[in-house]
């Protein structure tokens, strides 16, 4: 199926639970084939957002459109275009994997024959073929996670919401799941993938949406967002480090601690080059450690600005 319009539009979501503000102007758009990694602290609003899109939480304000269908006005049609795997395991433990998959296929209007075929496909993709006829309660935690994700993918939804699908998963589970999510995105599905494991987003080639206090505070491709995050360089000397030119202090945060100079700057490599160019004591330099910004740094810079500079 090929979609040609924005698959998920989320505008100005607001939701309070008593005095607690869960969503406070949450905006997000996701296009067909895109994978958006939703990251943020626990309690930032990620799960509430997913439950709103799934139609389980009534909004105080805002609007959600799934595949062009307004969730508020035509909830059932919108839910038909949505696949949702919640954070907690939500499967029938006394029935088999195949029976669980067929239930969700049937609920989404698939015939039994199509459901059986799709169950075989997803079983193969998620390395579940050998356990399709085993009861869910007999499976390992990782296998149950994959089954849960498969239930959300059965009907090839236009929008797929996966809420921390790899929590507690082993590397095999993770690899199989990520490959399958990428494949379903390549077929045109818009994927919103909530996680705390940032390297997974690299594997998925996902863009990022960083959530804090119920809203998206940063959104973009990894490279764009990382460009705004300072990297770090550490120069170690055999003796006392050379003095640092004042001009460098203006463009970077520089700390001298004993025989070590730590530079935090958007482009730490250029700063190191300047230090070396200004100093004639290269021979006393014992090592240079360059640490370009990572997704973890971005996450911390956005969510913990106070400690982001020197706390690493």
């Amino acid at each position, binding site marked *: 199926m090929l979609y040609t319009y924005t698959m998920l539009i989320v505008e100005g979501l607001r939701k309070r639970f008593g005095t607690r503000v869960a969503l406070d102007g949450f905006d997000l758009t996701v296009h067909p084939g895109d994978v958006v990694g939703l990251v943020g602290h626990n309690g930032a609003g990620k799960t509430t957002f997913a*439950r709103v899109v*799934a*139609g*389980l939480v009534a909004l105080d304000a805002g609007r959600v459109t799934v595949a062009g269908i307004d969730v508020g006005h035509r909830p*059932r*049609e919108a*839910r*038909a275009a*949505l696949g*949702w795997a*919640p954070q*907690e*395991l*939500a*499967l*029938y*433990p*006394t*029935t088999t994997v195949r*029976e669980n998959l*067929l*239930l*969700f296929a*049937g*609920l*989404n*209007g698939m*015939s039994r024959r199509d459901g059986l075929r799709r169950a075989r496909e997803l079983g193969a993709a998620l390395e579940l073929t050998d356990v399709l006829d085993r*009861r869910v309660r007999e499976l390992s935690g990782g296998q149950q996670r994959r089954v849960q994700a498969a*239930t959300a993918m059965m009907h090839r939804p236009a929008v797929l919401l996966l809420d921390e699908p790899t929590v507690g998963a082993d590397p095999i589970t993770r690899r199989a799941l990520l490959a399958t999510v990428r494949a379903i995105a390549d077929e045109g599905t818009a994927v919103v993938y909530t996680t705390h494991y940032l390297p997974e987003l690299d594997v998925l080639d996902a863009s990022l949406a960083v959530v804090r206090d119920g809203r998206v505070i940063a959104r973009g491709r990894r490279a764009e967002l990382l460009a705004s995050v300072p990297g770090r360089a550490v120069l170690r000397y055999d003796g006392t480090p050379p003095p640092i030119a004042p001009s460098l202090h203006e463009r970077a945060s520089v700390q001298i601690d004993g025989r070590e100079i730590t530079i935090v700057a958007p482009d730490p490599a250029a700063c190191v080059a300047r230090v070396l160019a200004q100093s004639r004591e290269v021979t006393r330099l014992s090592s240079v450690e360059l640490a370009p910004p990572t997704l973890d740094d971005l996450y911390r810079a956005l969510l913990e600005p106070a400690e982001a500079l020197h706390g690493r």
Partner: protein
Amino acid sequence: MVADSAAYRRIATLMAHEGLLLRRAPGPLIGYTIMPLLLMVVLQPTLERLSRVSASDAGGTGQAAAGMAVMFSLFALKLVGADVLQERTWHTWDRLRASPARLGDVLIGKAVPLLGVLVAHQFVIFGFAVAVFGLRPAGSWWAVVPVVVVWSSCVLVLGAAAATLVRSPAQLSAAGDIAAILTSTLGGALVPIAFLPSWLRALAPISPGYWAMRCYRGVLDDPAGVPMMASLAGLASFLVLGLIVTALLGRTRRA
């Protein structure tokens, strides 16, 4: 038409799945089916003698069969409660709600197999009474059918209401046992109503079990002597009340 066929498919899927869930955990249902049969074997001779000694229609095979059917269908109420409760503990209720199925589709898909089980459960008890004790209704067997259906629906709704009130299977088990004993005793299912203390007899009509017993005894023993439609209406009023309470409790819980 397309929308209708999709809804039918969803309901059929849910019914098939509910049937699977019931088949995969048959223990409690088997227990609630065998126990009344055993108890009937013990109680029927006593109730038969009681009927002759007291020269009344208070005892007899009809009382034994109807009493066990009412009492153990009230115990089976826990099956319904457990079914609803496990959807919550398994977190699958939210998955169903997040599917394109209407709430009504989900409720029908889950309720019909459960109702079928409750109806079958009572017919097994009456079938046993027919086969072993030669139970014959005073009127037509067909008159039993509406009573079985209305009473089973009542049990179904009460079970759903119970599930919205309790927080765990242990709570459901304890509350269900107490409620079943209380309702069936007060309704005259364990001891004929004529032999209850007068103050309990005065309270009996507040128990849905009382109206179920009146209906069954009316059909089995004295179709002319008991105003059947009035008894059935009394029973049906508990069904309506149960539906309203369950809907209100469910709405409060969702909020």
